[in-house]
């Protein structure tokens, strides 16, 4: 395909399709995340990137025959490797035998949260999740370091003069988006706080919340959005989320338990678990939402900058 726009749109559809695979394979939480990330944010970021880097692709391939041979040999070896694997859906597969029965049978007594995925994510493997949140934070900072702009006074005035707001031009977009944004925000909060009982949690809620802010920015233009969403504050919130997560762990350390052992947070261990999961999911939500907003705003800011320099030249 020569046109990258079409390729990106197809990859968005592919994201949505794989989300439906995940529902079919009982992974509701994962499907939720993939639907909001793969079909939503990822498509959007790639579109933002190709507005800067150009839509068309050079049709020349590097040694396509050699590449195809390498791919076929690797694929053939991988398929040969699968011949010893357990069949699809077998309950006796090794992956279901070691630690998982304990999660399924004991987590209700130990954690008191019906959604096992949440109790594993936020309690049994909370340290792992802390690592993931730090990676997301670092990636956000990486994008900031690569793309952020230092505005001089002139540039800033120039920046402010661009009016890319769409809300005066398109009546239907304006009305539909204005109606949708509050509901998206409320839905994000519901997903955030209902993650203990149904599919959801900080990761999904953060992405949905960020999607609402990005929708606002696309409709009213970056100039208005920058005024509403203070970038310095968003960076602070991203850092605060990670810090908040870590400090919940330190509180349990100070109370004489292991790092991130929430039973230290309350006299009743199960109530402590509930509180701990709520708090760290909040930290995750803060960081994920603000990192997504940071990434989008920096891509968009770069686009404005590139376009104005091009017209000047």
């Amino acid at each position, binding site marked *: 395909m020569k046109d990258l726009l079409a390729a990106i749109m197809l990859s968005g559809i592919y994201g949505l399709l794989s989300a439906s695979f995940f529902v079919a394979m009982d992974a509701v939480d994962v499907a939720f*995340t993939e639907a909001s990330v793969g079909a939503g944010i990822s498509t959007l970021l790639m579109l933002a990137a190709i507005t800067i880097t150009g839509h068309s*692709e050079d049709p020349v391939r590097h040694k396509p025959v050699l590449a195809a041979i390498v791919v076929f040999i690797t694929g053939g070896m991988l398929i040969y490797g699968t011949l010893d694997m357990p069949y699809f859906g077998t309950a006796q597969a090794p992956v279901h035998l070691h630690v998982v029965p304990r999660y399924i049978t004991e987590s209700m007594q130990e954690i008191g949260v019906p959604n096992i995925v949440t109790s594993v994510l936020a309690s049994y493997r909370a340290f792992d999740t802390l690592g993931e949140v730090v990676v997301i934070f670092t990636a956000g900072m990486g*994008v900031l370091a690569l793309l952020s702009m230092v505005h001089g006074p002139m540039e800033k005035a120039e920046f402010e003069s661009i009016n890319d707001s769409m809300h005066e031009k398109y009546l239907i977009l304006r009305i539909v988006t204005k109606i949708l944004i509050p509901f998206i925000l409320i839905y994000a909060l519901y997903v955030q706080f209902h993650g203990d009982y149904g599919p959801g949690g900080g990761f999904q809620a953060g992405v949905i919340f960020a999607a609402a802010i990005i929708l606002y920015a696309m409709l009213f233009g970056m100039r208005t959005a920058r005024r509403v969403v203070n970038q310095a504050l968003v960076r602070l919130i991203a850092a605060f989320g990670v810090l908040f997560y870590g400090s919940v762990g330190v509180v349990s350390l100070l109370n004489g338990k292991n790092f991130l052992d929430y039973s230290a947070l309350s006299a009743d261990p199960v109530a402590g678990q509930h509180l701990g999961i709520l708090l760290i999911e909040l930290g995750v939500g803060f960081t994920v939402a603000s990192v997504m907003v940071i990434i989008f705003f920096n891509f968009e800011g770069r686009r404005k900058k590139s376009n104005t320099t091009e017209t000047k030249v």
Partner: protein
Amino acid sequence: MILGLYNYWIVVVLMMIGFYIVIAHGNLVKKIIGLTIFQTSVFIFYISIAKVNGGTAPIIAEGIQLYSNPLPHVLILTAIVVGIATTAVGLALAVRIKEAYGSIEEDEIQKKDNLDC
């Protein structure tokens, strides 16, 4: 029945499509799209391992004995969000390369580099 392994084969096919795009295409954004396909194939691999025949989604409810495996779901849920964050870093690098070299085609970047030497 050897056909019971079909989930792995789908994963391998998807993974190889992603791999081919990464090595054969010169456009950096296209390479990143290839990487995301590769990445999704790993997600599907984990989730298909977690599936238990007759099991339901791992949310405890009364009257249900058999659940799918929640552990791979946890790993992949966080991996998806980490994946988009790292993809964004890749795209940011592509944007910077475009600004520095005026192109994101590997050949042209290589040519410019050779001229500078």
